[in-house]
Structures are given as structure tokens and as C-alpha cells.
């Protein structure tokens, strides 16, 4: 029943790669161990913390929950692929400018999720940033600076008013926290 290895072809950060992978290895394993791309972090391994977020065909995924074998033919972007030609992206620059990184461990995942959000919604509201990054935990609790960085990058570096746009009717999650239901 065991297969020694499988050949896959993937494009990682714009570069075609052929890799021999073990069937039970995840995309996260292969990025870190086989391709040496250690910017993508290993943390919870249950798809909750988002430290391993990468883009697969332009969509963000938790690399710990994807088998490398599934990726045959896919286009993958890791945090190492965000800077072009040695220049930090505007988003990365905004993270530096707002001191969004504290211990820094979650930042690669935060950056990739934020980039995915901005690619889809170039000028997100505060609520959209919160939802877009809900799958990325920061154990330092530095969410304010992270949200600020994303909003600043969306505004091309100009200061952003903090007032959120009205939330869309569909998918309104304002009713979710317990505090909304009954007086505590």
C-alpha cells in the first residue's frame, strides 16, 4: 500500500519546480523541508492559526491542511514571493511602518492573508479586514497594528479614517458575540 514517492510539478513564487514528495507530506512539509522556504510557519496544524497561509492559484489556504500531492500543477505563492526584485511590497512596507510585527511569528501568514484580501478587495473596510484575517491568530495580540497596516497599504500609505463602512446585509456577523444577545 505504501508509495515511496510521487513526482509533482508546481510553480512556486513564479518558478517551476519538480519535486519528489511522500504521499503523506503536506504542502507545508514540502515548502519548508524540501524547498527551504521557511517563511511559511508551522504552528497549530489544525487550520486554526493561519501561520502556514500560502496562496494556491491565488486563493489563500492553510498549507498544513493540503497534501503536497494535491498540488500537482498548482501555482503557489509564499511570503517569500511577496517582495519583487528585492523590494518590499507596499503591504510589507506598511507592516514595518506601523510596527505590526511584535514577535513576528504570525506575520508571514498575516501578510499572505492580507495580500489575498487586497487582491480581491483593494479598498476593504475595517470589518472586511477583520473578516479577511479571522483565520490568522497573533499571540502577541497585535491585531490593531496589523489591521492598521492593511488599511494603510490599501490607502497607498495615506492615513485611513477608522470609521468602518456599513457591513453588507448578507453575512452580517455582528450578531455573533455573546455580548450582543443579553446583558452580561
Amino acid at each position: 500500500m505504501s508509495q515511496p514517492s510521487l513526482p509533482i510539478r508546481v510553480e512556486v513564487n513564479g518558478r517551476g519546480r519538480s519535486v519528489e514528495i511522500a504521499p503523506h507530506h503536506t504542502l507545508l512539509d514540502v515548502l519548508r523541508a524540501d524547498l527551504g522556504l521557511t517563511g511559511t510557519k508551522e504552528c497549530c496544524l489544525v487550520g486554526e492559526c493561519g501561520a502556514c497561509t500560502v496562496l494556491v492559484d491565488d486563493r489563500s489556504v492553510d498549507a498544513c491542511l493540503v497534501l503536497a500531492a494535491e498540488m500537482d500543477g498548482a501555482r503557489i505563492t509564499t511570503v517569500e514571493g511577496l517582495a519583487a526584485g528585492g523590494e518590499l511590497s507596499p503591504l510589507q512596507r506598511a507592516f514595518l511602518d506601523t510596527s505590526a510585527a511584535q514577535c513576528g511569528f504570525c506575520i508571514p501568514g498575516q501578510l499572505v492573508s492580507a495580500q489575498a484580501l487586497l487582491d480581491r478587495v483593494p479598498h476593504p473596510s475595517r470589518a472586511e479586514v477583520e473578516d479577511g484575517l479571522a483565520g490568522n491568530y497573533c499571540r502577541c495580540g497585535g491585531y490593531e497594528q496589523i489591521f492598521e497596516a492593511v488599511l494603510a497599504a490599501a490607502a497607498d500609505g495615506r492615513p485611513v479614517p477608522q470609521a468602518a463602512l456599513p457591513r453588507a446585509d448578507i453575512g452580517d456577523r455582528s450578531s455573533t458575540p455573546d455580548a450582543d444577545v443579553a446583558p452580561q
Partner: protein
Amino acid sequence: MQRFAYERPTELRDAIALLAEHGEMARALSGGTDLIIRLRDRTISAGVVVDVKRVPELATGIRREGDRLVIGANTVMTDIAEDETIRSRFTALAEGALVVGSVQIRNRASLAGNICNASPAADTSPALLAFSAVVVVAGPDGTRRIPIDDWFVRSGVTTIRPGELVTAVELPMADVPVGSTHVRRTRRRGHDLASVTLAVAVPRDGPVTLSYGSVGPRPWVVTDSSGTLADANAPAEVRVATLERLFSSAAPSPTSMRASPEYRLAMLRVLGLRALETAHRRLAEAAA
């Protein structure tokens, strides 16, 4: 991670043959957001993982076929939440899909995987029940269509048979406007499993359908033919009396760490009232 073999069939018959050949040691892989976790923590074991994402019959896509909307088995939550027909005609399903996990999970988790995992707290189940969805499965003996109310048995258990695969989920298109919504309670905002889920569908004419989950071994669906819940102007106390009767199957586990039974039952009523208001408002907007 435990070791297993990986197969990626491109024909439905090959996928079914692999499942039949390996029986309990074969696991179908669609999005993997539940499966990979359980393979890693060894709550399930697999000799072979059968990746069904390249089987054409299960392909991603949402299409209209006559009086049904057909959602391909591999369609992920992001695509369901963004689909215009689902947002306008099956709003509760779009809302349910939109609160599954995080963006990363929704980009990967499939509708078929969600119903096969059969968590009582699954966010797509109440809407599928409220809209009388039909699960289409293919197996060694051909194709079966299973009404979603006959699908769920208990957590992790459905009426799918060995060797069968879900190929699609169908939603009957109503010929009258329907106002609907999915609501839930979680411990924290953002990424969490629900402590209570509830969906309601209010058609312009006809009975109101209401479904609720995370308060027992499976999500339940009930219908109110009395006209009380269909009345957009019924007072809250009248609605509550009807809701209490409809919630009679709710039996939350006393050992769950997410919420106490008392809390879940109290919130079920709150969510029911809220959902009815939203659904009636949407129905009025759709009919305007």
C-alpha cells in the same frame, strides 16, 4: 502524519472502484479541512487517500438544471457564498457557507465534505435542510438521490453506503419568492464552531421551514403549517409559543465544552425570533 497511499482518479468509475476495493481503509479527499486533521491526529486511519477533485462528475460548479440548482460536490464554501443565484434565492445557504471556518478554510472546504463529515454544528446543514436539498450519490450500484433529511444520522454518520461518493447537492428552485437566513451563536467572533445554528425559509405562500443544529446528535428540520410563523406581523409571544413546540427535538449535550444545554436552548429561541424577522424582511424586499 500517518503514512498512506495517494490516488487521484480522473474517472468516476475508478474512484468508486478504489473505494470499493479498499473499503474502510479508503478515504475520499475533497477539501481535506477535516480529513487531514483527523489523519494527522489518527482519529481515523487510512491505507489510501482517494483525491476526488479531478473527477469530472464531482466538478466544482453551480448550475441550473430545470427546476433545480445543482452544486457540484467539490464546490468550495467561497464559491457558494459568492454565487449570485444562491445569494438571492438561497440566502441562508450563502450565509452558512460564509461563516464556515476562516477564508483559508472556505477556500478549501467543499459542500460535499461538510455534509459527509456530518458535524451537528455544520454551518451549511440548516440551510440545506430548510431548502429540502437532495444529496446525489454514485456507487457500485448506480446513482441514488437522498433527501437531506434522510441523510444525517448522527455526528460523523450519514446514510451513504460503502463505495459511494457524493457527486452533487441539488436545491429545488421555488416558484415563489423565499426569504431566508442562517444565524448562529459562537463563543468568539470570527473563526469558531457554532454553539447553536438555525436557518429559516419563509416562502410567499406556504409553510415556513425551520432547521436547527448543534443541539443534538444531528440537525433537525421542522415545518410550521399553522400559519403563525408565516404571518409577518405575528407578535413575538405568539411566535415564541410556536417555536418552543418546533424545538422539541433539541437535546443539547450536557458534556459539551462549548455551551451548556440551558444556554443553547435559550439562544435557540432568540435566534428563531431574529431569523424570522430577517427572513420576513427579505421576503418583503424580494416581493417588492
